[in-house]
């Protein structure tokens, strides 16, 4: 029946969202910059093996601590590993963590938020749990969760996701509470539409825009949290080169060979900046009233 409903409108006119997107992009050229940088990073991560890289784990103690811009673009670290290759492969880890956390925490938060927004008794219980989680700084919570488990990429994603979920739940819950009082939801009830259908057809589509914006901010903050966890040794295992790991290993050499930290740091900062600029553009395109939060 849903298919029948969708096909009622035959020829499509421009969706309001598409029109707003175009308008916002015109007003926010920085968002285009963000999108371009992010896409470039994703392309680099995907094409890592074909970008003149070598095995990022291959050690060569003879050629350790070479300066950049010579034989090795970004130099080599104290074990003689090629920093260029490590940074390029590191993009895979950082972006994977960012995207995975953004998608997972948004989906889980959306599900919990929809329920708490609609089921009165669940609301009080779930929201107190969320308040409890939120009272712990998200990095600390992630460290604690990592301490309970084994260092692996999946566990890093899990730990950061758990610490991001409460924020998504809060956002979705407040959106649902606002939307369910909207006259068009009342109109749907009067038209005989059931609860489940109202949720899917009237509430859910109106939460997508703010969630998308929140998702980009989570993307950015998850990449930073991953770097923090790796930097203090509670993150991605050392055999996987992530930007945080590369910086962590170069910590002791910072005064001698600062580029070992600065290069992965620059990649991380640039990517986070790009994601945030994109998020700002999206926010203005989708909902000018949504408050900024990172």
């Amino acid at each position: 029946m849903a298919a029948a409903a969708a096909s009622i409108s035959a020829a499509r006119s421009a969706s309001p969202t598409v029109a707003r997107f175009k308008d916002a992009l015109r007003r926010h050229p920085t968002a285009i910059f963000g999108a371009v940088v992010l896409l470039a990073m994703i392309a680099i991560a995907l094409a890592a093996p074909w970008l003149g890289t070598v095995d990022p784990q291959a050690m060569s103690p003879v050629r350790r601590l070479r300066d950049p811009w010579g034989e090795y673009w970004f130099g080599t670290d104290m074990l003689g590993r090629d920093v260029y290759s490590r940074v390029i492969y590191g993009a895979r880890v950082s972006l994977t963590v960012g995207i995975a956390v953004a998608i997972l925490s948004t989906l889980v938060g959306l599900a919990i938020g929809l329920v708490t927004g609609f089921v009165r008794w669940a609301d009080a219980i779930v929201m107190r749990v969320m308040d409890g989680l939120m009272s712990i700084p998200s990095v600390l919570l992630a460290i604690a969760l990592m301490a309970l488990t084994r260092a692996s990429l999946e566990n890093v994603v899990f730990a950061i996701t758990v610490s991001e979920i409460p924020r998504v739940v809060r956002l979705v819950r407040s959106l649902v509470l606002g939307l369910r009082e909207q006259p068009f939801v009342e109109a749907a009830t009067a038209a005989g539409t059931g609860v489940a259908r109202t949720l899917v057809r009237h509430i859910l589509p109106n939460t997508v825009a703010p969630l998308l914006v929140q998702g980009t901010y989570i993307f950015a903050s998850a990449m930073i949290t991953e770097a923090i966890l790796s930097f203090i040794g509670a993150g991605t295992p050392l055999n996987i080169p992530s930007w945080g790991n590369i910086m962590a290993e170069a910590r002791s050499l910072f005064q001698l060979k600062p580029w070992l930290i600065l290069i992965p740091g620059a990649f991380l900062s640039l990517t986070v900046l790009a994601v945030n600029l994109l998020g700002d553009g999206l926010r203005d395109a989708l909902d000018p009233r949504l408050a900024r939060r990172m």
Partner: protein
Amino acid sequence: MSALLEVRDLRKHYPVRKGLLGRAVAKVHAVDGISFSIAERETLGLVGESGCGKSTAGKTILRLVDPTAGTIEWRGSRIEGLGRAAMRPVRRELQAVFQDPYSSLNPRLRAADIVAEPLRNYERLGAARAREQVAWLFEKVGLRPDQMVKYPHEFSGGQRQRLGIARALAVRPKLIVCDEPVSALDVSVQAQVINLLEDLQAEFGVSYLFVAHDLAVVEHISHRVAVMYLGKIVELTDKRTLFRDPQHPYTEALLSAVPVPDPQAKKKRIILQGDVPSPITPPPGCRFHTRCPYAEERCRREEPAMTEVRPGHLVACHLRTAVQP
């Protein structure tokens, strides 16, 4: 006339919550015991100033809010206690048009899908049949079928309200509750929408509960009119009698405030003193006694009951009922 809808002593009180535990410390008497009926093919106007409970009354009848007390009888059976599933078949016959044509249409749905929503809930039509139906409805409410693919924001206020009417009409209801359907529209557009509602009534034999604050609009479209003040109906009669010979002092004052489009016309204006009392603590006795120019001692103590001062003319006022033999 057989009554389609019969409302008796309907009440809706909202709790005022305060403090940490959210205890109800007071009640807003939004609707405080109103009774009326609507016959088939009839339009009942429900007028009153902002906050008098007229919209709440409409929503309670639609079961969008649950009544605190009283009965709602729909075609002979009570619906005030029905659950969601049991309300479903009733909702098909009892549709609604809302005040704000901007917020009562989901901005992310296309016009055709908005109008098709009740159809989809109650009739299993194929895509082609549904589109045909929606196109037909578009024509009935004065929209072009080629506008079906547009989004609400691409329509004007009047056109949006036509969409709302088409949606209400889609499953051929017996009664449409119109909650201030034209108050958000320009005057010229108001007339068009009112005429459309009248045409549709003539064609489909639908009844309306027409909630409004604009007396001119209500006079135009209604057969009978109920005047509400602070959660109560103070006067209920046919349109002609009400506008020519109002009995309740509040109705009198309301009518005297209607502007007359004649600069030479001299009219006695009744200017009411003071403000509407709070519906949290409505005054004892007659609700209107704090502002009534004729109030007596009895009005402050005793609440007047709705009394038939002449056939079909109900008034809740001690003075009027006492005067009549």
